[in-house]
């Protein structure tokens, strides 16, 4: 395996003097070490937000949806906005691990684990909303086509909400299996390193008895490929179906054939932004600078630029078509002059600035390779994509066909509380993950270490043989030419 030829012009994907053992040690460090103060602070804040959100959910379920700011005209607002937002965020993970796997993009290896963890955690948040937004959530199981005693009563297969149920649950389960499959060798690595019996027990359970035999690896590769094949269509289908909630309706601004591709692009756009947000912090906090490099950030920014471009074209199309239709029922859709100058002008312009204008700065190479700017842009996009869904739902609903029924929407503390709660819940999960899971797919990274590791690239360019260079003095005796090679290299380097 391994050392396929990689052009010197390509940036190394693993920087620094990393040996195989270094990779193992670096990935295992957060799991084996103790949490620092910052972790505890952030975790406490997230936990408090989560508990507050939980309180708000309990209040909603026990009192009624009336504790939200909804009204007779605006039947959805923050609930479905949050739902679509979280689902969208969940898109990057699968794209990175499945689509990029099929396209053999090796840079995904450093980020796919966390991206997919983010996917799963955000789909969990997303899945909350369709349940708690129901007037009678205790009957939520009625949307499942389970055999029942209600006579011939069955779910309505015409309803996009039902398709959502299938789409989201499929997505969650496939993502989870895919993620876990990738985790098996890494869990096994942690198991093998664990010294405490309890830890060892847990990780041996989690690693499903991974033994590291060649057969294991062969099956692992096969399953990964099959799952990637399965997951790829899901990247497109999930948000397509979410967009059907709107596209198949008859409401001006919702009823739009452009929605499926536009929503998918928007989802990847927001997903990558969230991956950036998380990883730019994580690479610092968990000392993963060598694995998540400037190059990785740039790659992701390029994807953002592409999907952001698609989204921008969609905005322009929507705006133009609403105007071009000449129908005055389209005068106040979320992308129209009516919206830009109406009472929700701020939401309209938040969307345009955050999603349309700010990401354009990434055309400049210097900016898209700048950690700080990338971080800011990623946050801005996250905000913008939330506003996109808010605009689609609230602005369009608030100004429907009959002006007599126009209203507006104002969130209550419960709306806000539940949203903050899901953010808290997300970070609780993510922070726990960061402390207990191998946050980088080390087994995979090791496969590219020799082809794309900085040190090995340099060795190769210098005309040195890579034979034996994988050895590490901490794990094996280094003798002969290997030692000479390494010593020479170290000397040259210093």
């Amino acid at each position, binding site marked *: 395996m391994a050392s396929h030829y990689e052009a010197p012009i390509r940036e190394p994907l693993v920087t620094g003097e990393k040996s195989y053992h270094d990779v193992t040690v670096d990935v295992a460090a957060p799991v084996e070490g103790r949490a620092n103060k910052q972790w505890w602070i952030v975790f406490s804040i997230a936990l408090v937000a989560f508990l507050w959100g939980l309180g708000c959910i309990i209040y909603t379920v026990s009192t009624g949806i009336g504790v939200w700011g909804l009204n007779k005209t605006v*039947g959805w607002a923050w609930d479905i906005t949050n739902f679509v937002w979280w689902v969208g965020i969940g898109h990057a993970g699968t794209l990175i691990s499945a689509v990029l796997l099929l396209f053999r993009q090796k840079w995904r290896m450093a980020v796919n684990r966390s991206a997919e963890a983010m996917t799963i955690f955000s789909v969990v948040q997303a899945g909350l909303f369709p349940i708690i937004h129901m007037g009678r959530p205790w009957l939520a199981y009625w949307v499942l086509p389970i055999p029942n005693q209600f006579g011939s009563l069955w779910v309505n297969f015409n309803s996009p909400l039902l398709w959502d149920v299938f789409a989201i649950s499929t997505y969650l389960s496939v993502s989870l299996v895919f993620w876990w499959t990738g985790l098996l060798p890494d869990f096994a690595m942690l198991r093998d390193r664990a010294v405490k019996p309890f830890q060892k027990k847990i990780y041996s359970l989690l690693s499903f008895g991974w033994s590291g035999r060649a057969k294991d690896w062969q099956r692992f590769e096969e399953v990964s490929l099959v799952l990637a094949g399965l997951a790829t269509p899901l990247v497109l289908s999930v948000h397509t179906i979410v967009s059907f*909630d709107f596209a*198949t309706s008859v409401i001006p601004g919702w009823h739009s054939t452009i929605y499926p591709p536009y929503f998918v692009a928007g989802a990847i756009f927001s997903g990558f932004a969230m991956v950036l947000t998380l990883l730019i912090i994580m690479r610092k906090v968990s000392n993963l600078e060598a694995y998540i490099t400037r190059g990785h950030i740039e790659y992701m920014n390029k994807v953002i630029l592409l999907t952001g471009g698609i989204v921008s074209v969609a905005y322009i199309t929507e705006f133009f078509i609403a105007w071009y239709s000449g129908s*005055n029922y389209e005068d106040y859709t979320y992308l129209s002059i009516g919206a830009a100058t109406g009472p929700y002008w701020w939401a309209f312009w938040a969307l345009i600035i955050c999603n349309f204008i700010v990401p354009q700065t990434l055309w400049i190479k210097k900016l898209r390779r700048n950690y700080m700017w990338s971080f800011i842009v990623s946050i801005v996009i996250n905000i913008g994509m939330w506003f996109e869904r808010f605009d689609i739902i609230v602005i369009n609903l608030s100004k429907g066909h009959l002006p007599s029924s*126009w*209203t507006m929407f104002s969130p209550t503390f419960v709306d806000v509380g539940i949203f903050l709660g899901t953010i808290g819940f997300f970070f609780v999960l993510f922070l726990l993950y960061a402390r207990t899971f191998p946050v980088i797919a080390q087994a995979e990274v090791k496969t590219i270490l020799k082809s794309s590791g900085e040190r090995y690239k340099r060795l190769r360019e210098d005309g040195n043989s890579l034979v034996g260079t994988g050895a590490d003095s901490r794990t094996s005796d280094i003798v002969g030419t290997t030692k000479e090679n390494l010593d020479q290299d170290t000397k040259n380097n210093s």
Partner: protein
Amino acid sequence: MASNKKYWSSVEELNPNSSIAETLKQNEFVEEIPNDEFLGDKDSLGSSSTSRRDFLKYVGFTTAAASLAACEGPVTKSIPYVVQPENIVPGVANYYATTIADGYDFASILIKTREGRPIKIESNTDAKINGGANARVHASVLGLYDSMRVQGPKAKGEYISWDDLDTNVASGLNAAKASGKQIVLLTQTFASPSVKNIIAEFSQKYGNVKHIQYDAISEDAALNAFEASYGVRALADYDFSKAEVIVSFGADFLGDWQGGGFDSDYAKGRIPSHGKMSRHIQFESNMSLTGANADKRVPLTPTQQKVALAKFYGFLNGKSVGGELPAKIEEAVKNAAAQVARAGKNAVVVTGINDIDAQKVVLSINKSIGSVVMDADAPRMTRQGNAKQVAALVEDMKAGKVGALIMSGVNPLYTLPNASEFEAGLASVDLSVAFSLKEDETSTKAGYIAAEPHYLESWGDVEMKKGHYSLMQPTIRPIFNTRQFQESLLKWAGNDVSYHDYIKQTWESTVLGGSSWNTALHDGVFVGNGNVTVETDEDAVPFAASNEDTEPVNAEATVASVSSSVNKLAGAAANGMEITLYPKTGMGDGRQANNPWLQELPDPITRNTWDNYLTISMADAEALDLENYTVSNGALNGDYVKVTVGGVTLDKVPALIQPGQAKGTVGLSFGYGKTLGVKEEMKTGVNAYPLYLGFNNTQEVKLEKVSGTHEFASVQMKSTMDGRGDILRETSLEIFNTKDSHDWNPQPEVSVNHQEVSADEADIWAEFDSSIGHHFNLSIDLNACTGCGACVIACHAENNVPVVGKSEVRKYRDMHWLRIDRYYSSEESFEGDMDVVEAAPNSISTYHQLEHPSENPQVAFQPVMCQHCNHAPCETVCPVAATSHGKQGQNQMIYNRCVGTRYCANNCPYKVRRFNWFLYSQNDEFDFYMNDDLGRMVLNPDVTVRSRGVMEKCSMCIQMTQKTILDAKRDGRPIKDGEFKTACSAACSSGAIKFGDVNDKESEIVELKEDKRMYHLLGFKGTRPNVFYHTKVRNTEEA
């Protein structure tokens, strides 16, 4: 009949001598009971392991278990009939004809009772007059179950017995008689022949008795004018269906002007037939329901109205009349006069100006043109109040001349402008008794509260108009320990006959003229057959003679007095702003202020609920720096003003900017600001009666902005149609008569194979066959709809629609299944709106231009309920199929199945679906009628009370249509056209809402559907509604 059946025990009985048969007779058990087997064997008993202690344990356990098992679960108070009451079949409604005559609303109605409970009011279609129940009348059934009702006679806040009350009152009356002081009966207008007789009897017994009738909102000027002209204290009746031209000077005759009830006749004349419909010109200050329906509306101040009326008289009679009017108004007056002159006897002029001269002038105009619309021969009796007598009474009371005051149906301490003086006077009255439903402002101050029954528990009779009688009968046993005013007066007069018998006697001797009493009682109404004549003048009015205006005058004197009246009107002048006080559609004079249905009924014009407010024009608001603005959730906020009228000040009145309000005028409605006898939630608005100085509804007023922000509860945020003229289609009579319907009522078309075909023919789905069985359609004629709101309340009552309260309405969470949208034009007319759209579509300036209503806009009403789409957008999106299509065309909502995603409501283009945000019944947060056992008695047992978390909406009253179908099936007959009804169609006395089965090809609904005015709301969406509308036609023809 005793049974002679013999039961055989065995064949042995056939043999009379059988020993076995004999033994069987003696012994219940054929074989010996084996006691010994169990108890005989002492050994085994002794060896039993059950000790005495065990035995006691068993006994203890079984006792405990038995008593535990005997414990009841929650007690549900449901008692089956042991003996079935006559005429009550559980599940089948009984209807009784009765009459509401609460002093403000007079109507002949039918009461639907279920299992003995009155639950709904319907119009009495047999009645020739006042047979149509308005919104307040429909809501009045809830007053029966009002938990704030006083439950028995009270003295000093303590319940007493009627016997005690009778004793005390008798001694009080005798004392008054002995002291020579007045005994005054201060009552509402009863217009009742029996009451008149009773009072006569009562006067006979006590001598110095005065009967003073008091209408909270006075028609004194009109009564005086009519009395002066025709010698009868009554009001002219009008049949607007006969009118070709209607000119109104401030008369809100579609509201409560002169007792109201003119709308159904008016609506008849508004439906264009044979190219003709009435032309209605309205001169007024406030934007009234009548002005909103007018073809032409001219806003002007109350003073200008007087001048305009004088000028109108001048133009009509070719005389020049002085007085200044703006040129535009003068032009309008001139045109109106020309149109009246041309229409001749088919025209009518009415006025609401509270001025005897104005009323006289109008009467004389109608008389001189020979108007067939006005009926002065059989005038209306439903307003009798005499302002002068009431004023004199206050003086007499203060002077200590009144020994006893008995009140019924009035609340002077709330409704009198000089309530404090009345209160002072009341203190010096020796005996004061208030017959009242409530412990209200007056009854709590009176010596005794005599608990009155609700009219649904009472007997009574009314002469609505001369020769037209109506009977009131109880529809339930009195719920509380109450006694009627009439019954009490009879008792105090020493007559022991019951009021029922008394009415019967009265009617048999003076009304029926040989007709059957039972038939009259069954019908509820009776039209005099000329066999008896009834005098209508006032015997007990000592003031009548002293009133110089009320004396009948001869013809020449009339001409002279009319021209002097005209001159007086022409000379009217005012300083500064003027206020017009008016009764609101929902609240009337305020006697039903504790009725949550009415509080939550959106005002047809302002669409505001739970409030009254000062209506003010945009220009005046700007001048006073007053603002109305929407907050982040779309709710309306407004500034407060201090209102001062002749030394009386209301400190904080919210100001509402009202398009169409004449510049220089403001309006404020009566009926709000009650403080006693109403629940906390209903204590809304401000009391306008203190401004009602001299019973004059127009006053000069001073306004001053004060600090604070008022929170309105409006159900409609946007007041214009935003150039979407397709929603409420409208055309002029001229275009309607001359152009093809394609020009003014185009039906949507779609392209199929590059051919434009009617949208109804194109379908991407296989059509369901709906030709078998019934298929219901609802027709709404926008020409006939006056926006009165009766249907909204009827729907409330029929369908157990919850009340949500002011703060929830403010959040736009009203639950009305049926709403009446009101749109203002942005330009002078809706036609002008469309011109703006055509001139510059899609431009920012167009948006802004169309977003704001014009200063004097055209107004249009559109009732919207679930459209029952055959291609319903809501049905496809529900994940659990909780809303689905019925075989008869209904879009049905299955509450049990609903999980509450609200997707259906979002996807409804008509926004008619309503979500139960909270639990609205039996929830202390929503302390309205559904929160107490008494209030819940009004619920319709045929309709589920929805729980929280489910969607609800109009069901097209499926419980009513199914009932009709089952009745016909049981009778084995086909269903007649017109039998199918919904609550709204039954309540619509103006005939705007019609309901029927389109599979009955002979039915009226089919004819309506094929009418060229027919269109479907948002028909281009392809939803194929089963509700359709008829394009509004305005008669814009000028003279």
